[in-house]
């Protein structure tokens, strides 16, 4: 069993470029920031390393950080430009009973994150959900299509500047 700080040191020694830092100032759980295009290599290492053995991905969640510039369009709706979209990975080791939280941030206009669905099978649907609701593009995902919303839906509902559509397939919404 290792603490999050120890796991960070191991990762930092192994991947000095891809591991960006640890935020331990938060009131609850320390958070390790990772480069979005290197996340898969790091996850393979976390899963296969003998001393870490993170064999299960508990949760993968997309988040709209809403840290860009906020403006209003002519109808008064919020529009956010710039800033980032983030993905949080909560990993768990069933045998060693330690946990860690990783975070990657990708630019809002071009949110490319490497897929970890080849590392943990459970990531497949979680990534589809993050794509569906936030529009995060997971590179090398085997089947990146919408999962909860209809397959032909437009827009990403969980983004903070999401605007409800007036019509869906010619039918009035609301």
């Amino acid at each position, binding site marked *: 069993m290792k603490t999050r700080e120890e796991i960070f040191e191991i990762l930092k020694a192994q991947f000095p470029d891809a591991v960006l830092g640890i935020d331990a100032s*938060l*009131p*609850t*759980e320390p*958070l390790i920031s990772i480069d979005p295009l290197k996340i898969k290599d790091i996850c393979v290492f976390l899963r296969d390393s003998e001393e870490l053995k993170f*064999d*299960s*991905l*508990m*949760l993968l*969640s997309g*988040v*709209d950080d809403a840290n860009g510039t906020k403006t209003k369009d002519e109808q008064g709706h919020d529009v956010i430009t710039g800033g980032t979209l983030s993905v*949080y990975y*909560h990993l768990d080791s*069933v045998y060693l*009973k330690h946990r860690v*939280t990783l975070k990657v941030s990708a630019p809002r206009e071009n949110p490319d994150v490497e897929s970890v669905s080849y590392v*943990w*099978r*459970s990531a*497949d*649907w979680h990534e589809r959900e993050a794509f569906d*609701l936030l529009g995060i593009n997971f590179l090398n995902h085997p089947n990146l299509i*919408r*999962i*909860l*919303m*209809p397959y032909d839906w437009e827009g990403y*509902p*969980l983004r903070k500047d999401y605007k409800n559509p007036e019509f869906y397939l010619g039918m009035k919404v609301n």
Partner: protein
Amino acid sequence: MALKTERMVLNMGPQHPSTHGVLRLELEIEGELVTKVTPHIGYLHRCFEKHCEAMMYNQVVPYTDRMDYLASMYNNWGYALAVEKLCGIQVPERVEYIRVIMGELQRIASHAVAVGTFGLDIGAWTPFLYLFRDRERILTLFEMTCGARLLYNYIWVGGLSHDIHPDFVRMTREFLESFKPTVTEVNNLLSYNKIFIERTANIGVLPLDTAINYGCTGPTLRGSGLAYDLRRDDTYSIYNKFDFNVITGQGLQGTLGDTWDRYYVRVQEMLESVKIIEQALDQLPAEGDVQSAIPKRIKPPKGHVYTRVENPRGELGYFIISDGNTNPFRVKVRPPSFVHLEIMDDLTRGHLISDIMAILGSIDIVLGEVDR
């Protein structure tokens, strides 16, 4: 001449009695054999997570009821724990005990539905009726406590909506006494029934490493033989005060991790829950205000928290990000059913169409939680 078979696509659902809700399975079959299953979900999607962002922390609780509607108490509890951890709220001991009693009663009720409808899917009517008769008594206990039978809104952040009824302890004890014979009856009627074993043993075998890689938890993981229970392994509330066993599959009727094992884990877990409730009733503090720790206004500091509880179906997790306001910035739920439904394709491949109901019943999904 060899029999010519052709691959065809068959739709099962969204309106089908065995899919336990609105789920569509797209089956690719070759004769009677299933070669691929693609679940299509989202028919019940109502954007729970988006709603939360427009609500204050305490207003989210009724929404959590409506996710896993067979285990609403546990959904309330998981959410309350997450917010309490974020704000650093300590709840009184009496509240903890009542939460454990309610949570375990809910586990019995939920497993009763799971076991009953599982038999129903396979064609065994009678055990379903016995189990629903007893579940009805649990619902009466809940109704007596908080006025609702299915969607309770009972466990609030920092406390409970009501204290228990004066008769609650006596009636719960009576119920537990009468429930134990039901389990024996179910075992005689269903678990060791030759026809039932033929339908479930060696069907849908889930190997342990696959189960872990898929993120399976709860009875689905324990059915594959690993004693992993968050109540014991990542203990929360006051579960460390109780003595109970973690039930695992043994491969008694066939291969380890088959449908029968997952089913039997649930049957035995009901008895373990009875044990926990009996201990909790013995130790329940007599006096105490259940609302003393409820905050007037919830405004957690900036930060994020992930808490998990052992829901009847598996690990129910709440990931909450706070930006220091009275509304959550982001709430993300880890529903066990969502994760478990993903293994359907692996489990059903090469089985008969009629086995799909058995396999789907054995992973025990609730569509309200899958779609949120």
